[in-house]
């Protein structure tokens, strides 16, 4: 018989080997394929996310290289127009939806509980669900491409070209249903991040002590739960139009093509910020480690992260400057798009000042982060140019925009991510990446990137429209395109060097120890790789830089991860209050579960059924999904969800 435990005064102990062993037994994922499929460990899920996202990055990169071969010179016939259209659409879909956001989710998944001093995310099973759905939705979206009917209307998929009369194949159906499906993954992931940051920070970690990366992912997640419904709805309405003859976007029966653009960009532009803000946060957290000083201007940088997102909700129409909206209406969006430069400038000046006022140690990671500042500024000013309505009337839909968005996505996502791999790979694997190969990796990527995309600004200024599968001679674009193609291959070689470094270092890299870079935040206080329970005792935080307190000497208090609450009655972690991180409750964490996988299988059946009009399959999948949800939510005694004692 076991009595109900409603309250407990947690034991404060010093972490000893015996406690660690006990926690290991409680938290360890069982070995084997079953353990892997049912694991809810945020560290495993985080690494799975990162690896899967890189797989998609490589796929998207190969698509890009094929397109660059087609565009190496005028009038090439490597690809048919239809092949080219599917390639550029799939490339955009892959990089924006299947690489850029998931890779950041992977890092945040891995790092958040470690940075926040918690033992897992707030909803570990939801975490597994968001990963499985991401994989399933990615495969779903690629299935069309694999059988030759990939999306072919670009990543923003404008109607009416995406409507059935002009696009009768299944191409858009794969994309539409896949995006709705992927939206579920993004939404549950974002909800998980939000509750994690609101409820499971270490005691003492008030909102002014959170790492900037946490601010970044928090902001991105808040944006996601607000805007993902817009795109899911848009794709759902489009699918209804295509399959059931409704008229949401059909002009002949009172629908509006521009409704698509509004719904898409209300989502699309905030999303663009959501895929860069966490990466900017990585730079804000990791660049100072290599500059050997705290970030300059934490408060303005934290605010600028949030302010970017808020302003980001008011710039969606700058993708629609040429749609005929009245000039005054456009000018509001012009103003918002120009002023959004201000918070970005705050970050740039803060990073630059951190370099100038620190003593930078030039490692590969530092090179990626510091070059990111420059790439960010180039992507920023080209964005600033497109914010000016009359200028954008010329720039939009040309290669200038292609250059801009690649500077933004590669410069502010890929470069920080690769830098972050150099920083946190030792934490994940216990081995350092090779620095010598790292330098080669950096310079190859940097030079390749510059060669590929700097000329594209000029290609655009010389009038080359985007999304054309070939171009005639004598347009003044030949040499620029040749240079871009060469650069794209150099960039690809740089990414290849990264993979070589990763594989080689996994086997024979130098051992890292807990804190190879002498970092300041909590994740560096645990061994590499961290134990399954992360922290033997719940750490107490008294400043923003727990591991630098002795050296910064900014207050008399000291953070600790040595002594604290033990919490070992099963899987447990601490809930703290929203603003101040006061200890509030003991959370019971779920163990391994197949429910997320089963729910994903059910949902996959549901979406495949919808795609193929196999209503029995959709109904069956929906029933499996509903049953998994009910089973998942059924109160469990082990999770302290049932009031009655066992003997009743």
């Amino acid at each position, binding site marked *: 018989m076991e009595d109900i435990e409603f309250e407990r005064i947690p034991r404060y102990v010093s972490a000893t080997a015996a406690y660690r062993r006990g926690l290991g037994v409680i938290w360890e994922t069982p070995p084997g394929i079953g353990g892997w499929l049912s694991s809810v460990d945020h560290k495993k899920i985080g690494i799975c996310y990162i690896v899967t996202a890189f797989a998609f990055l490589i796929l998207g990169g190969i698509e890009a290289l094929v397109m660059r071969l087609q565009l190496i010179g005028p009038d090439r016939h490597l690809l048919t127009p239809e092949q080219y259209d599917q390639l550029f659409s799939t490339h955009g879909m892959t990089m924006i939806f299947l690489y850029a956001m998931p890779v950041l989710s992977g890092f945040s998944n891995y790092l958040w509980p470690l940075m926040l001093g918690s033992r897992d995310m707030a909803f570990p099973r939801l975490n597994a669900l968001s990963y499985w759905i991401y994989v399933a939705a990615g495969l779903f979206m690629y299935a069309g491409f694999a059988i030759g009917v990939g999306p072919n209307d670009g990543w923003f998929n404008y109607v009416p070209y995406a409507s059935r009369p002009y696009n009768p194949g299944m191409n858009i159906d794969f994309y539409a249903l896949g995006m709705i499906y992927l939206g579920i993954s993004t939404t549950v992931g974002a909800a998980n991040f939000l509750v994690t940051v609101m409820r499971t920070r270490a005691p003492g970690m008030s909102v002014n002590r959170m790492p900037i990366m946490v601010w970044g992912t928090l902001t991105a997640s808040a944006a996601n739960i607000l805007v993902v419904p817009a795109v899911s709805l848009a794709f759902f309405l489009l699918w209804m139009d295509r399959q059931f003859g409704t008229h949401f976007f059909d002009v002949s029966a009172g629908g509006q093509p521009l409704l698509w653009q509004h719904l898409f960009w209300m989502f699309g532009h905030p999303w663009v910020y959501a895929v860069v803000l966490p990466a900017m946060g990585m730079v804000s957290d990791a660049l100072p480690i290599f500059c050997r000083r705290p970030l300059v201007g934490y408060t303005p940088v934290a605010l600028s992260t949030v302010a970017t997102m808020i302003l980001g909700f008011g710039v969606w129409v700058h993708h629609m400057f040429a749609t*005929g909206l009245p000039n005054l209406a456009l000018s509001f969006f012009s103003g918002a798009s120009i002023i959004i430069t201000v918070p970005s400038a705050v970050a740039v000046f803060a990073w630059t000042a951190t370099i100038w006022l620190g003593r930078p140690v030039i490692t590969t990671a530092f090179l990626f982060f510091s070059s990111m500042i420059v790439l960010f500024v180039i992507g920023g000013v080209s964005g600033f140019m497109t914010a000016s309505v009359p200028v954008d009337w010329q720039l939009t839909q040309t290669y200038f925009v292609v250059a801009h968005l690649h500077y933004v996505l590669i410069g502010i996502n890929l470069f920080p991510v690769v830098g972050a791999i150099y920083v946190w790979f030792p934490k994940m694997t216990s081995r350092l990446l090779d620095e010598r190969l790292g330098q080669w990796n950096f310079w190859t990527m940097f030079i390749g990137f510059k060669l590929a995309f700097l000329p594209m600004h000029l290609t655009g200024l010389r009038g080359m429209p985007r999304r054309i599968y070939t171009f005639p001679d004598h347009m003044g674009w030949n040499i620029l395109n040749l240079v871009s193609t060469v650069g794209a291959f150099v960039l690809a070689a740089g990414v290849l060097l990264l993979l070589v470094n990763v594989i080689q270092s996994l086997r024979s890299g130098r051992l890292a120890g807990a804190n190879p870079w002498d970092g300041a935040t909590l994740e560096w206080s645990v061994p590499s790789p961290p134990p399954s329970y992360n922290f033997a005792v719940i750490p107490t935080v008294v400043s923003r830089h727990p591991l630098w307190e002795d050296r910064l000497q900014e207050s008399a208090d000291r953070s600790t991860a040595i002594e604290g609450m033990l919490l070992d009655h099963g899987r447990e972690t601490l809930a703290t209050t929203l603003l101040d991180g006061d200890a509030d409750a003991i959370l019971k964490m779920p163990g391994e579960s197949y429910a997320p996988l089963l729910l994903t299988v059910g949902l996959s059946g549901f979406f495949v059924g919808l795609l193929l009009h196999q209503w029995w399959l959709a109904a069956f999948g929906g029933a499996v999904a509903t049953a998994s949800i009910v089973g998942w939510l059924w109160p469990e005694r082990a999770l302290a969800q049932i009031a009655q004692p066992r003997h009743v």
Partner: protein
Amino acid sequence: MSATSSATATTAHPSPHRAKVSLAALLFGLVGGPAAWFGQFVANYALASFACFPHDTPRVGTGPLWPSVPTAMLAINIAGMAIALLAAFVAWRLWSVTHGEQPGPTSHLLEVGEGRTRFLAVVGLMAGLGFFGAIAFNVVALLMVPTCAG
């Protein structure tokens, strides 16, 4: 992080002055500016676009659907600026109550940022002023760009 200190030892609360300020005022200081900006932005956008392009044909050379639209937009704009300023003022008041929350010079507020209440107050102050500026940017458009195409 020191291995010798104890979690049960007396550590400073992150916001010793939390009892001195009302959470509602803090919240208004934080969200007043952004909310005012977003509200006036969306309202003016809706007005400007519908008044000049109501259905399927733009009103070129005929002026807006309702002659009072420019005035209305300016009024909305000014109201937005007033709310943002008010939020900044409230945040400034809260900051002056709480800026002694942790020792150190004023620049510590922005850099070290200790003291959760004063951190939020100073963030509110910056947000209020910043979004006041953002709304002011829209005045430029209202004053310079004709309401509908000629």
